[in-house]
């Protein structure tokens, strides 16, 4: 008898447990909130990328929630830090999808981390929007992967055109990061266009993420006497490269891409980075009303000037919100379709139309480093 009571007790516990379980998973999908996952480099060597993007995304999501949310539901943003490591990015994205049951994903800035996360998002059929990964391979992973920025086959040639036509530069040396997909891609597209225009690439030197000494490569570049050095890399290394180039007495103009965009660039690069040019997703001096409105809101909330990563993060979040508002049913498939239909969206970084390859067709902003800030030079497109 005792045994029987004990057994049934255990059974009932078991039952309760089961009920609890099913109850939980129901809750996750039928919640009064919409779960969105964000992954980024909040710490690590490119920490300002993740932090700025996060601020931009939060600005957009908080505004939506303050206005009542989407379809009466609040958006819950679940943020995961990947420490700037591709394997960590893959791990946190898996966690966001399988444990947090997110409906869509926002991230990453660095192309190699987006490339690590995208196959997982594609496998689980969860739409993912990268705010500012420019390597073309990212969206080629599959039909669930989008981006709201231009791609390197555009950014590289734009910089080549600007160097050749505006700066009248004829000889360029390239210093690229062997370990970064972003750097390799940008180098390839820049080199091709620059040669096409009739310019000369004196040499391509290599380094690796995390290196601190670039003097050997720069000494080799110095003897080639280039007019400019193109450095497709992230701001931490760029700052050090600029310093060492000037220490070696190299006077060539320094050129780069959106990976330079960070307030830390001026800190690490100091005097040496002054006068350098790079292509970016936006400029604070752009007359575009959507841009100015974003800058005003951002300054009100964080009391600092947003960089390009913040603007791209803001746009990625707003493109996603627009898609959420459009769909009749909140499922990953429907959201994916709605994102793919994004057309003429007025974003902080310009007008966004998602093309058939799930990339955004936009113009690039060329900016120059001046007095520890950025001066807007011009916008450029290839048409």
């Amino acid at each position, binding site marked *: 008898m005792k045994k029987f009571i004990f057994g049934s007790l255990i059974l009932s516990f078991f039952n309760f447990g089961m009920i609890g379980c099913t109850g939980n998973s129901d809750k996750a999908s039928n919640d009064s909130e919409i779960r969105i996952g964000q992954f980024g480099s909040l710490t690590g*060597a490119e920490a300002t990328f993740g932090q700025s993007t996060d601020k931009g995304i939060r600005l957009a999501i908080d505004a939506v929630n303050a206005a009542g949310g989407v379809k009466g539901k609040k958006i819950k943003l679940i943020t995961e830090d990947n420490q700037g490591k591709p394997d960590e990015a893959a791990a946190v994205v898996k966690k966001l999808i399988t444990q947090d049951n997110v409906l869509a994903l926002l991230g990453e800035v660095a192309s190699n981390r987006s490339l690590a996360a995208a196959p997982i998002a594609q496998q689980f059929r969860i739409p993912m929007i990268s705010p500012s990964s420019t390597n073309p391979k990212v969206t080629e992973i599959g039909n669930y992967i989008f981006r709201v920025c231009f791609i390197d086959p555009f950014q590289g040639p734009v910089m080549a055109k600007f160097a050749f036509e505006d700066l009248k530069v004829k000889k360029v040396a390239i210093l690229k990061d062997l370990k970064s997909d972003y750097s390799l891609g940008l180098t390839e597209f820049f080199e091709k266009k620059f040669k096409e225009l009739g310019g000369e690439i004196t040499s391509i*030197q290599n380094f690796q993420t995390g290196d601190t*000494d670039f003097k050997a490569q720069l000494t080799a570049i110095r003897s080639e006497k280039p007019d400019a050095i193109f450095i497709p890399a992230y701001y931490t290394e760029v*700052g050090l490269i600029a310093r060492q180039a000037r220490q070696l007495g190299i006077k060539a103009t320094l050129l780069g891409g959106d990976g330079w965009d960070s307030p830390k660039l001026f800190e690490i690069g100091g005097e040496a980075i002054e006068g350098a040019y790079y292509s970016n997703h936006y400029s604070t001096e752009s007359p575009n009303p959507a841009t100015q409105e974003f800058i005003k809101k951002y300054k009100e909330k964080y009391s600092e000037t947003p960089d390009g990563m913040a603007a791209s993060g803001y746009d990625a979040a707003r493109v996603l919100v627009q898609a959420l508002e459009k769909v009749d049913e909140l499922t990953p498939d429907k959201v994916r379709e709605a994102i793919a239909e994004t057309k003429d969206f007025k974003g902080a970084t310009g007008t966004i139309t998602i093309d058939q390859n799930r990339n955004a067709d936009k113009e690039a902003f060329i900016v120059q480093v001046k007095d520890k800030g950025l001066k807007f030079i011009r916008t450029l497109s290839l048409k």
Partner: protein
Amino acid sequence: MEDFLQHVLNGLNLGAIYALIALGYTMVYGVLQLINFAHAEVYMLGAFSIYYSNKWLHLSDHPGWTSFVISILIAVMVCSLVGLTIERLAYRPLRGAPRLNVLITAIGVSLFLQFSGQAVFGADPKLFPQVLQDKDLIQFGQIQIRSFDLTIIGVSLAAMALLHFLIHHTKMGMAIRAVRHSRSSASLMGINVDLMISLVFVLGSSLAGVGAVLVGLKYPKIDPLMGMLIGLKAFVAAVLGGIGSLPGAVVGGLLMGLSEEMVVAYLSSTYRDALAFGLLIVILVFRPSGLFGKYEVEKV
């Protein structure tokens, strides 16, 4: 030719820094037969001590020799303290334990400091305060000799000379050498062995502190994992010169810096780190005791 001379100059600069850190490894090894893996983290903490003390002292607002000397003193003090603490807390309790246990402890301390550093200082790189201004001193054709280059080589040499003087021309140095020779006979002669070992840690860590300031000036990006690779390379430099030998560490460090620079300049930067560890393997095969090491037959 101009390029070659510039490469030599760059390589010597890099090598001087490796030599400073290699000396710390080699000194501890000479006395304790222990590879103190935590040495690289002492160096990292030295760099961060300047970063944080600058927030109070604002040394980078008045760059110059005074600020530079104050920074070196701060880094040396902090590093000595850290070295002493590590020795007292982690290594001394294991004095009688098998060598392998101490070695594993050393690796543990190293990892503990690396990741505590990430938790406390944050993993993002920080800018090392520029306490000394870099000036263009001499120019031969395209070759630039800058004040930093001379400072690094000069200060390293001075620190090494001071170390040589302390070890070979003072009573304390004699005691340290006695402990290195035989710990038990030294203690029979009335030498306080524990005190001498502590002193060795203080001296080695001080050099790491000097190295931290010099590296910080030259490559102003610091982060909690900055010691990892430079520490490994300095360790290889120490083995290359013959671990336990002071001149060996200096020569090993300079060779290491020079060959690294030449590999990047004339081969490819991909081989940069491969070279360091390739060298280690070659040395261990052909000269197990290193360039200046004494070959000792171990009796069973």
